[in-house]
């Protein structure tokens, strides 16, 4: 079902697995991923506002640069509204990119920062494709490319 939990579980969650499951099952907060670094809060309000009244949006930020790094949390007032977002927004486009929504146990201060070594999201460390909306190549690939003798 489109409102089911994905298989992702936040490994940094402070609490038991069953506590996490309980929170996820009643959550009104969604994680939104695969956003462009340039997608704004305004665009998110407009799209997610079509599913109900948005309570809060927290943009995901690069830990060092404090600039958006391609994810966010969207919190609704009701579970029903967030279920609508899972049903009708997950897998559709925002800012020309297909975004993904998933249940989140709830925003806590600190969770808005990327957990990748370079400051952004972990997935941007390891990916090998070129994505102009997410800073180009993945970080590890970028570092390799910058080495003077890489291409010789």
């Amino acid at each position, binding site marked *: *079902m489109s409102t089911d939990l994905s298989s992702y579980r936040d490994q940094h969650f402070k609490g038991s697995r069953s506590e996490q499951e309980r929170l996820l099952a009643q959550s009104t907060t969604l994680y939104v991923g695969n956003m462009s670094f340039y997608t704004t*809060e*305004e*665009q998110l309000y407009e799209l997610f506002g079509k599913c109900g009244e948005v309570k809060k949006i927290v943009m995901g930020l690069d830990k060092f640069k404090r600039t958006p790094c391609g994810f966010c949390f969207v919190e609704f007032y009701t579970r029903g509204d967030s279920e609508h977002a899972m049903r*009708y927004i997950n897998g559709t486009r925002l800012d020309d990119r297909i975004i993904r929504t998933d249940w989140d146990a709830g925003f806590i201060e600190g969770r808005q920062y990327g957990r990748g070594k370079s400051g952004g999201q972990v997935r941007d460390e390891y990916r090998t494709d070129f994505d102009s909306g997410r800073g180009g190549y993945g970080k590890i690939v970028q570092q390799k490319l910058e080495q003077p003798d890489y291409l010789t």
Partner: protein
Amino acid sequence: MSHRRKRGYEDEDGGYRSKKRRTNEHMEIEDRLESLILRVGEKSTSSLESNLEGLASVLEADLSTYKSKILKILIECAIKLPDKCTIYTTLIGLLNTKNYNFGGECVELLVKSTKDCLKSFRWSDARFLLRFMSDLVNCHVVNAGSLLQLLDNFVDAALEEGVPQVRRDWFAYSVLSALPWVGRELYEKKESELDRMLGSLEGYIKRRKKIHHNALRVFKSDHPHPQEEYLDCLWQQIKRLRSDMWIEKHIIRPYLAFDSTLCEALQHNLPSLVPPPHHPSTLYPLPTVIFRMFDYTDCPEGPILPGQHSIERWLIEEQLRHILMSNHTERKECAAQLLSYPLKNKIPLEYIIVEVMFGEIFRLPTPLCLEIAYGSILIELCKLQPSTMPQVLAQATELLYERIDVMNKTCFDRFVNWFSYHLSNFQFRWSWDDWDDALSQDPEQPKAKFILETLLKCLRLSYHQRVVELIPETFAVFLPDKPAPNFKYSVDGPYAGSEETRASANLMAAIKRKCTSEEVLSLLKQELDPATGEEDITDGVFNPTKIDVFIQTLLFLGQKSFSHSFAAIAKFHSVFKALGSTEEAQICILRSVFQLWKTHQQMLVVLIDKMLKTQIVECAAVANWVFSKEMVPEFSKCYIWEIVHLTIRKMNKHVSKLQKEASEARKRIEDSDSDSSDSEDESRGRRKNKPLERPTEEQVEKLEDKMESAQADQKNLFLIIFQRFIMILSEHLVRCDTDAVDFKTPWFQWTVGRLHQIFMIHHEQVEKYSTTLETLLFTQDLDPNILDVFHQFVALRM
């Protein structure tokens, strides 16, 4: 209906069984039976007929042990799977030949279930059951005469005087909607009774009032396609069917193959079913209009689109709408099911789907689902049929644009919302040049306004430069302003050197220094209040300059994002409250916000929403501000109405919340009173079930007072809004009359349309105050152009 195995724990046959193994086995068999019954008719290597025969044999063997469960499943199928009606009636027909008593019990349970549905206002379910019982005549399970008796009872309900027309209409509709299945049989067996019944219905349908019709039309004009009232349309379709001797070729009738077996069976008479009487609190389904946008000339070479008065059109639309309503929570499954419509090769399916979908998007007063549900299902349809669906949608968009001059304004908004959303999923690609006829139009004309408002919505879903790039250069006139704050107190701005600019600069510095609200207030007082030595906050007195400097400066500082502005409002909330102590002061606040963010409509909407939520401004203030002289140039812009509707919705939510609290508290008192008089419960330690304390009578009364006060505010809000509408519309009509010009200006059309929209979007809440509105505002002396809007709304429930 779920195809998953249901754990049915009730056991109506033998009562509680002590042996666990037998219970489990019993449940497993019940599950298997359920699965077999649910799945019959699905894709199979064997024919439908042989599957039905096989299933009938299996069930016959289990009838003695599992009869109740089987009956229950069959009733559920009748209700939840109306598109498989004829499959299940055939099954019951076959079972009836093998076991007459079982047939009888089926029939009895069907009638009982129909009664239950009517009593609990499950109108769709009742209608499907009526259809099912009618089809059982075709399977020789039910006697034609007894069905006619039941249908006559429904027709009597349609003819009953002194009850709301919506009730009568529903009964007429439900009878007509059963006739495609059983019309032929009734014609063959009971022609004169059938004719008499149809005569009565025709008389009713023709005689009844249709004041509500215009309230529900998507298009004002009946050209090129009539926007028929729903009962009128079905009546025409049934009339056509009758003139075709009740022969229709659309419904699959498995019972025909078993005719020789079935006609051996003994028939049953339906137990008497008299519809429950009308009660004032009963809510009947609202009337609708049949939305039409295509005819056969719009479709390419290939299968022909059935005519608007053909019964096939109605049958197909019924089924598609049912698929939509059963699957709308799973958009991918919904799209797949819509596209696997069984007779898809005989009809231009994409066209009918698109027409049905837009009919739902444009449904008045309100759609049944969220607008984005339909939008995302349409996107899934495009993904599944990439070579046809997008083109049909493009064609539909063109058609709607062509007819937009006569489109209802409420539907106009929905069209803008849908189109901009759809474009945002397809890189905003569109052949804008095809619409260059709009370039020469007055911007208030619907076509020009449509492009403008669509681009404004596209802006919200993207960014300004993107919109610049997606339109041709010739369309620059439709380009939205680049959203930017219009800060008037900048050091080199229009008020350079003034005390306001100096105050603003000082305020900005103080805020950056992280000053408190008290410090802000005293700074404002120091800089901008005349040194009178008196208390400056007196009743009704406010300083507009103080307000303006504060608002402009603070929100200018918070311009970076919504979150920044929200944080600013939260931090200095008490300043807002102190400055906005009266409605006039609050209107001043709104004015300042507007002047700063005029070019960023979305920011205005979210800021006003936030200020309402944090009670910085009252709903009435927003309403009065929207209708103020200053806002006249903005009045017809869509975002203004976004603001009006969110304001009303906030008020509605507030009232509902208090109603709920008050009635729950009242119930807790009543429950605990009845409990304390029952000593048995106390001895069983019932206190465990009631963690909440019994509130005092005083507490409950306080909640009820709060609720009543909120309801008074709600009524007042509607009165303000409607009164303002009446005033500006009346003024316009009088002025035009004096100047001897046509009053039907674009402004007039928009304004009447917006008035109509208030009634549509908030019909449930407005309904509560109908009498007050009729007595105080919408009086007989009002110009009919205004009064008609009110009468059409009231007619929705009459």
